[in-house]
C-alpha cells in the first residue's frame, strides 16, 4: 500500500462528520461496525449471566441466588444470546460488512432499510432493558415463552415478547435486503458459480429470515394478546390447544438455529481455502448443501416436541425429517476436510478457529442425532444434555465462527493486525475451557439432570463442579482474546491489502476499504473466489 500516510478509508470519509455520520449513515460498512459493537456488548452481558448460572450450579442448593433469580437469569441469558447476539451476529455484522464487497457492489440494495433494521435492533435492545428494570419483575419464562406459564406469570413478559418481535422485524429487513442484493447487485462477471461460499450461506440464511421470522412475530403477538385479553386461544378449557403454541414457536425457532449456524459455515468455508491455499473442495456441493439445509431445516421443527404429548405419527415424521437435515451438514464437514488434502496449511489464528469450529460442530451435531432419534430423545429431552448440545453448536459453532471472522476480517476493516501468539493462547484457553464445560454438561444430562434446575441432587455434583471450573477457563480465554483484538486493532502494526493471501474481492482493495468500496471503476470478475494462483499475501 503506497498511500499509507494519507489514506483514511471509510472510518473518516463520510458525508456527515462525527457521531451523526454514524447514526445517520447508510453505508453498509458503518452499519456493520455498529452492529458488531452492539452484538459484542450483548455477548459480554449474556456471557456474564451465563457465568453466573454456572456459579449457581457449582454446588447443590442455592449458592449465589435463589430460584426466581436463577429463572430470570437463564431467561435473559437465553433471550440475549439468541435474539440479540447469535441471530444478528454474523449476518448483520459481517454480512453487512462483506456482502457488497464479496459481490462487487457499492452497497446493499436498500441502504436506508438497512439503517432502519439497525434501529429496530436498538429498539429491541432498549425494550429488553425496560423489561429487566421496569418493575413487575424480570421475565422468567425461558427463551421459549411456553404457554400456559407465559400467559400466567406476573413478570414483564409482554415487554420481552415485544422486544423479540422488534428484533425479528430487524432480522426480516436484513433478510429482504440480502436476498435482493444477491440477485440484483452482482458485479460484471460475478456468476452464481463464482459467488464466495459466504455469500451463498448468507443468501440461504436470508431466505429463512424472510420466510420463517414472521411466524415468531405472530406467535409472540398472540402471547401478548392472551395476556391482555385472556382470550384462551391456548387454553384447553376454552377450546384452545397449548401444544399448538409449541408448533408455532418452533416453526420459526428451529429454522432460526440454521440462521445461527449457516453463516458460520460460510465463514469457515472462506477461511479453510485461504489458509490451505487450495480451492474449496466440491464448490457446488457446498453451495447447494447450504440451500438444502435452509429448506430441510424448515421441515423439522417438532423434534423439540417428542415428549410434549403430540401424536406418535408426528414423532415418526419429524424424526425422519430431522435425520435428513444431518446429511447436508455431513457433506460440508467432509468437504472441509478434503480441502486440507495436499494443501499448504498455515495455522494462523482464524484457521485455528475454523478447525475448532469443525470439531465443536461435529460434537454438537452428532449429539443432535441422539436427540433426533425418537427413543433416545425421550430420555435426553429437557436435560442438560440438550443444553450441552446447543452450546456446542451455537457457541462452539456459531460463536467460534464469529470469533474466527473477527480475527480474519477485522484487520481488513481497521487496517491493523493483532498479536498472533496471544491470539493462539486465547484460542487454546477458550477451546479447552469450552470443551470441559459443555462435555461435563452433556454427561450430567445423560445421567438425567433436568435443565433449568437451580438445585440438583448430590449425585450430579462432581460433573457440575467440573463444568463450572471449565467456564472460568473459558472466560479467561475470552478475555485474552478480546483484549488482544482490541489492542491490536487499534494500535497494532499497519497491514497492506491482503494479509492472508485471500482471493475474494475484498482483499484487492485497500485496508480499511474506502467509502465507495472499489473506487470509481466497477470491478469485473474473471475467476472464481478460490483461485489462489498469483495471489500473494502481504508482509506485515
Amino acid at each position, binding site marked *: 500500500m503506497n498511500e499509507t500516510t494519507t489514506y483514511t478509508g471509510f472510518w473518516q470519509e463520510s458525508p456527515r462528520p462525527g457521531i451523526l455520520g454514524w447514526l445517520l449513515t447508510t453505508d453498509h460498512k458503518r452499519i456493520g461496525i455498529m452492529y458488531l459493537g452492539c452484538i459484542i456488548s450483548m455477548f459480554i452481558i449474556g456471557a456474564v449471566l451465563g457465568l453466573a448460572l454456572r456459579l449457581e450450579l457449582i454446588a447443590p442448593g442455592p449458592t449465589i441466588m435463589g430460584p426466581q433469580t436463577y429463572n430470570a437469569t437463564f431467561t435473559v441469558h437465553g433471550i440475549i444470546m439468541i435474539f440479540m447476539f447469535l441471530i444478528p451476529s454474523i449476518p448483520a455484522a459481517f454480512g453487512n460488512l462483506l456482502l457488497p464487497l464479496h459481490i462487487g457492489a457499492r452497497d446493499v440494495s436498500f441502504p436506508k432499510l438497512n439503517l432502519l433494521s439497525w434501529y429496530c435492533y436498538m429498539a429491541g435492545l432498549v425494550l429488553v432493558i425496560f423489561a429487566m428494570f421496569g418493575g413487575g419483575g424480570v421475565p422468567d419464562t425461558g427463551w421459549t415463552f411456553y404457554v400456559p406459564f407465559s400467559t400466567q406469570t406476573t413478570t414483564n413478559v409482554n415487554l420481552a415478547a415485544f422486544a423479540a418481535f422488534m428484533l425479528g422485524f430487524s432480522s426480516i429487513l436484513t433478510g429482504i435486503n440480502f436476498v435482493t442484493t444477491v440477485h440484483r447487485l452482482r458485479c460484471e462477471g460475478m456468476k452464481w458459480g463464482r459467488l464466495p461460499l459466504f455469500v451463498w450461506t448468507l443468501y440461504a440464511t436470508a431466505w429463512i429470515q424472510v420466510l420463517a421470522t414472521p411466524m415468531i412475530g405472530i406467535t409472540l403477538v398472540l402471547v401478548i394478546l392472551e395476556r391482555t385479553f385472556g382470550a384462551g386461544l391456548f387454553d384447553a378449557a376454552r377450546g384452545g390447544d397449548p401444544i399448538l403454541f409449541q408448533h408455532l414457536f418452533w416453526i420459526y425457532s428451529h429454522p432460526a438455529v440454521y440462521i445461527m449456524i449457516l453463516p458460520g459455515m460460510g465463514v469457515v468455508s472462506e477461511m479453510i481455502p485461504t489458509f490451505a491455499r487450495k*480451492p474449496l473442495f466440491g464448490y457446488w456441493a457446498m453451495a447447494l448443501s447450504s440451500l438444502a439445509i435452509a429448506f430441510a431445516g424448515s421441515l423439522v421443527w417438532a423434534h423439540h416436541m417428542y415428549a410434549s404429548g403430540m401424536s406418535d405419527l408426528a414423532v415418526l415424521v419429524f424424526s425422519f425429517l430431522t435425520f435428513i437435515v444431518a446429511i447436508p451438514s455431513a457433506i460440508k464437514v467432509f468437504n472441509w476436510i478434503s480441502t486440507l488434502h495436499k494443501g499448504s496449511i498455515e495455522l494462523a489464528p482464524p484457521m485455528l478457529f475454523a478447525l475448532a469450529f469443525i470439531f465443536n460442530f461435529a460434537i454438537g451435531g452428532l449429539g443432535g442425532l441422539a436427540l433426533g432419534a425418537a427413543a433416545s430423545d425421550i430420555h435426553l429431552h429437557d436435560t442438560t444434555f440438550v443444553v450441552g448440545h446447543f452450546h456446542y453448536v451455537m457457541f462452539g459453532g456459531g460463536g467460534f465462527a464469529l470469533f474466527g471472522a473477527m480475527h480474519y476480517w477485522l484487520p481488513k476493516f481497521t487496517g491493523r493486525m493483532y498479536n498472533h501468539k496471544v491470539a493462539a493462547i486465547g484460542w487454546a484457553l477458550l477451546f479447552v475451557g469450552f470443551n470441559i464445560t459443555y462435555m461435563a454438561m452433556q454427561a450430567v444430562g445423560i445421567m438425567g439432570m433436568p435443565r433449568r434446575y437451580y438445585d440438583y441432587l448430590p449425585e450430579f455434583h462432581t460433573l457440575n463442579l467440573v463444568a463450572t471450573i471449565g467456564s472460568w477457563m473459558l472466560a479467561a480465554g475470552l478475555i485474552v482474546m478480546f483484549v488482544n483484538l482490541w489492542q491490536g486493532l487499534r494500535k497494532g502494526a499497519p497491514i497492506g491489502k491482503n494479509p492472508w493471501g485471500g482471493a475474494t474481492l475484498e482483499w484487492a482493495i485497500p485496508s480499511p476499504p474506502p467509502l465507495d468500496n472499489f473506487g470509481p471503476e466497477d470491478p469485473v470478475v474473471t475467476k472464481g473466489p478460490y483461485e489462489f494462483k498469483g495471489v500473494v499475501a502481504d508482509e506485515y
Partner: protein
Amino acid sequence: MNSLANPTAQAVDNVLIYIFGVSLLLLLGITVATIYLVVKYRRSKYPEPTSDCHGNMWLEAIWTILPTLIVLTMFWYGWTNYTGLREVPDDALEITATARMWSWQFEYPDGRRANKLYVPVNKPIKVHLKSTDVLHSFFAPAFRVKRDAVPGIDTYVWFEATQPGSYDIFCAEYCGVGHADMTTSIEALAEAEYATWSQPQQPSTEPRGLTVLNELGCTGCHSLDGSEGIAPSLFELSGQQRKISVDGKLSEVTIDVEYLRRAIREPNAELVEGYDPMMPSYDDATLSDEDLQAVIDYLLGKVAEAESVQINANELLENNGCIGCHSTDGSESIAPTFKGIAEREVTIIRDGQEMTLKVDVDYLRRALLKPNEELVKGFPGIMPAADYLSDDEIEAIIQHLLKQ
C-alpha cells in the same frame, strides 16, 4: 443413571449406545483425519499446495449416500424402540398422576392418594398424566421415560420396575419458581410389601351413606360439621327448617325424606335461599336408589358419626402440594413457612393497602380459600385457592397449622 434391566430403559439405552457409538467413531475419524492433514501439509513443509483439485463427483456421491444410510438406521432404530415406550402391556396397573405447581399427586384405582408413586415390582405401570395449571413433565431417569403433563390433554407414560428400590421423579418441563423442587420418587415395593401398603389402613367401619357422600364429591361443597361455605352444611339436618325458593317464590319447608330426595335428584328446582343453583343433579345412573336411601338415612339419622371422620392434616398438606411451596422447617423461598405460623403477626396487602394482622382461624381460612385477596407482603400472588378441599379438610388443616 442407574443401569437397570427394565424394559423401557433397555429400549432407550440400546438406541443411545448405538447412536453414541457410531457418533464416537465418526468423530474420531474426523478428528484424526484433520490433525493428520494439518500436520502433514503444514506450510513450512509445503510452501505451495501440491494439488488444485476442485472436487470429485464420486467422493461427493459417497459422502452423500453413506451418511444417508447411517442416519436412516439411526432413525429406524430410534423409532422402533420408541414404539416400545408407547405400547402399554395389557395388564398394566393404571395410576393417575396430577401435576400442579409444584408437586405431584398420585391417585390409585381404589381412590387412595399419595405423593410418592408406590408401585409393585414386575408389574407394568401406566401413569396417566394430568395438570391443573401449566405444563409439567413426568421424568423418571431410571426408566428413561418422560412425558409432559398438559392441562386439558391426556398423556401417559408406562414403565415397569424390575427391582425394589426408590427411583427419582423430576419435573422436566419448566414451570416456574418451584420447578427444581418438583421432585418425588417411585417407590418400587416387593409384591408382599405392596400388598400391605395397598390394604385399606382402617377397615371401613364408616356407614355406607358417608362413603357415598365422600365418593361422589358432595363433601367438596357441603361440610358435615355445620360450617357454611358455598353450599349449606349437611350437619344435623333432621327436623330443620329451610327457606327455599321455587321459581322465584319463597317458602319454608321442614326437612324430611322426600325433601332430601328431591334436593338430590333435582337440586335446582327448589333452591335454598342464599345459594346459587350450582349443584349438579344426580340421577339413578350415578346414584342408585339404594345409595340414595343410605345417604338420606345417614343425613337424617346418624348425625353423630360425622365427627368420627378422621382427617390426617399432615397428609393433606403433603398430598395437596402445600409443602411444595411452604416449608415446615422455617426456611422461606417461595411462600411463608408454616413453622410458627400460629404466633405470627403477618403484614398483608389487601386491595393495595398494607395492614398487619394476628394469624387466627378466620385469617387462615381466607388465606386458604381466597389466597390472592390478601397477599403476605413480599410474596407473589401465586397460591392456588384450596377450595377443592372439603370444609372438614380445611378445618383440619387450620387446626393443624395453629398447632405448628
